[in-house]
């Protein structure tokens, strides 16, 4: 080995990209969007031939697959980006008198059985870290595939249920009354700031004024809620080994609630862009979006020159737009994202989102101007429809 090769051998470890699990998640999201766009372009290129083939196949399959099929209806989950825009196009699964029972099988192996004829289930979010459904009425039984990376969450009007691989039922016969029964594994149920952990055989009922927990293996009893004080939280996370793990490890394993609590106890605050991004994910996915914005703003302010700066600005915009309903601030965040990476892979989405946010904030002239710009820059973009609606009919 020559002297130069020896020196290079010593130096080569310096040549690495600084990536966290959060960076990978963000990259995966971008990848999904890009893959779908490419797929759409190919479909468009196929044109009439593809359309005709699809129509023929649809006609061919439609009558042969009426509800008698013993197989569950595997649902073609929409792509991540489209699922994220559930305000515009929510994905719903419902039963009625004609179809009193229905099985929905998600492609990750999880299943939901809608067990009553008035059940309404809606897909709220599908992200690498989160699959969220809301049960608006009726009753559904869930079987969740074990996936430490993805949290499975079900909401009713009164409760929030989070699991990582188990079987349980949720019923919401009417507003103000919900129940959860666990068949297998462990489930965390949240009522406001109260958190309950249910084991197999336990049933939690919210009757509009109080929580009642029944344990099939013991006599019926009423349990007081564990308040979200730090000490109580520690006892709620019964496995001491898990509680002792650093918050970053917990977050990378998908235990965002535990990671959030561990992060509060950590004396050293996140400082590197990767840590700040991960902290933002932890805060957001454990139900603290406001706190997530603090971390993201720090990344934007202190690490603008890093790739994470643009991602942070974009994520900040999304949280302000969708979770905190602050369209004006969201528009400014999307503008920052565009400015930081004008030719980046998220520039198109940032521009469209900014236009939508200005429209929602009441600044129609700004919204129109940006929509015009979008249509000029991305004439075949995937948001041309909504941008045209913002522009309005041509004179």
């Amino acid at each position, binding site marked *: 080995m*020559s*002297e*130069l*090769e020896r*020196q*290079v*051998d010593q*130096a*080569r*470890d*310096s*040549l*690495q*990209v*600084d*990536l966290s*699990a959060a*960076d*990978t998640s963000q*990259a*995966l999201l*971008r*990848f999904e969007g*890009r*893959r779908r766009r*490419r797929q759409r372009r190919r479909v468009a290129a196929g044109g009439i031939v593809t359309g005709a083939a*699809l129509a023929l196949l*649809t006609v061919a*399959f439609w009558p*042969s*697959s*009426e*509800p008698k*099929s013993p*197989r*569950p*209806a*595997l*649902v*073609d989950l*929409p*792509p991540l980006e*489209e699922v994220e825009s559930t305000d515009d196009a*929510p*994905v*719903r*699964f*419902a039963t009625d008198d004609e179809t009193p029972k229905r099985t*929905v099988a998600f*492609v*990750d*192996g999880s299943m939901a059985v809608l067990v009553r004829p008035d059940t309404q289930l809606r897909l709220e979010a599908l992200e*690498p870290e989160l699959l969220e459904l809301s049960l608006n009425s009726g009753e559904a039984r869930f079987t969740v*595939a074990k*996936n430490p*990376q993805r949290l499975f969450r079900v909401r009713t009007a009164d409760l929030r249920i989070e699991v990582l691989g188990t079987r349980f039922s949720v019923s919401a016969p009417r507003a103000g009354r919900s129940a959860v029964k666990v068949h297998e594994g462990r489930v965390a149920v949240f009522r406001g700031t109260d958190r309950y952990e249910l084991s197999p055989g336990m049933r939690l009922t919210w009757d509009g004024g109080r929580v009642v927990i029944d344990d099939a293996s013991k006599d019926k009893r009423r349990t007081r809620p564990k308040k979200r004080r730090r000490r109580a939280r520690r006892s709620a996370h019964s496995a001491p080994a898990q509680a002792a793990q650093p918050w970053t490890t917990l977050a990378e394993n998908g235990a965002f609630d535990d990671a959030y609590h561990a992060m509060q106890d950590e004396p050293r605050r996140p400082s590197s862009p990767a840590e700040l991004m991960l902290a933002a994910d932890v805060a957001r996915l454990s139900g603290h979006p406001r706190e997530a914005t603090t971390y993201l703003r720090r990344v934007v302010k202190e690490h603008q020159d*890093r*790739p994470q700066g643009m991602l942070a600005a974009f994520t900040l915009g999304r949280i302000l737009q969708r979770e905190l309903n602050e369209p004006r601030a969201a528009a400014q965040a999307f503008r920052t994202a565009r400015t930081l990476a004008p030719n*980046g*892979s998220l520039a198109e989405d940032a521009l469209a989102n900014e236009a939508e946010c200005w429209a929602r904030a009441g600044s129609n002239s700004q919204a129109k101007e940006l929509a015009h710009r979008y249509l000029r820059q991305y004439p075949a973009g995937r948001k041309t429809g909504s941008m045209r609606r913002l522009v309005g009919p041509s004179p």
Partner: protein
Amino acid sequence: MASTDPSFRPPGGARLRLVRGEALDEHDPVTTFEACFRRYHRLVANLGLRLLGRRGDVDDFVQDVFLEVHGAFHSIREPAATKGFVRTIAVRLALRRLRRRKVAALLGLDQPVDLGPVAVPANQEHVALLAQVYGELEAMPTKTRVVWILRHIEGDKLEDIAQEVGMGLSSVKRHLATAKARLEEVFGE
């Protein structure tokens, strides 16, 4: 995409077969591909940085590599071969990009080497040395450059390099000798 309301779809999965044929063949390929992405994201990013020598190109490179991996994912018969498969796609995509870059350089559209930001703690002397080496590699033929980087930066075996780049073992040795002679000339050994 058609209506996003599945209640309008025929039960039995027929529609799913149409839209996501690969989903039924692989029994949960989304999770499998997702695992592949999560597992090899860092590997591909590092490979991209090392082969292309530009931090700004890495994100785009990663996306392109996984688009190709996704397209051919169903053809991987042996899970243990996934890593080699991903690496081969990454190396060949890097070769294509570097060739395009040569053309851009002829038109005066090329950009300088940009290795940062690198992992901490990075020795600044090391970074400076690597920047010099990459400056010289820019002037070499694309395959010579890639073969040398795979050998001395990635630490690959000659047989693996031959497989990844798609050439014979003797060609790999020839490219390495060419690069070595050029670098020794410049760095005065």
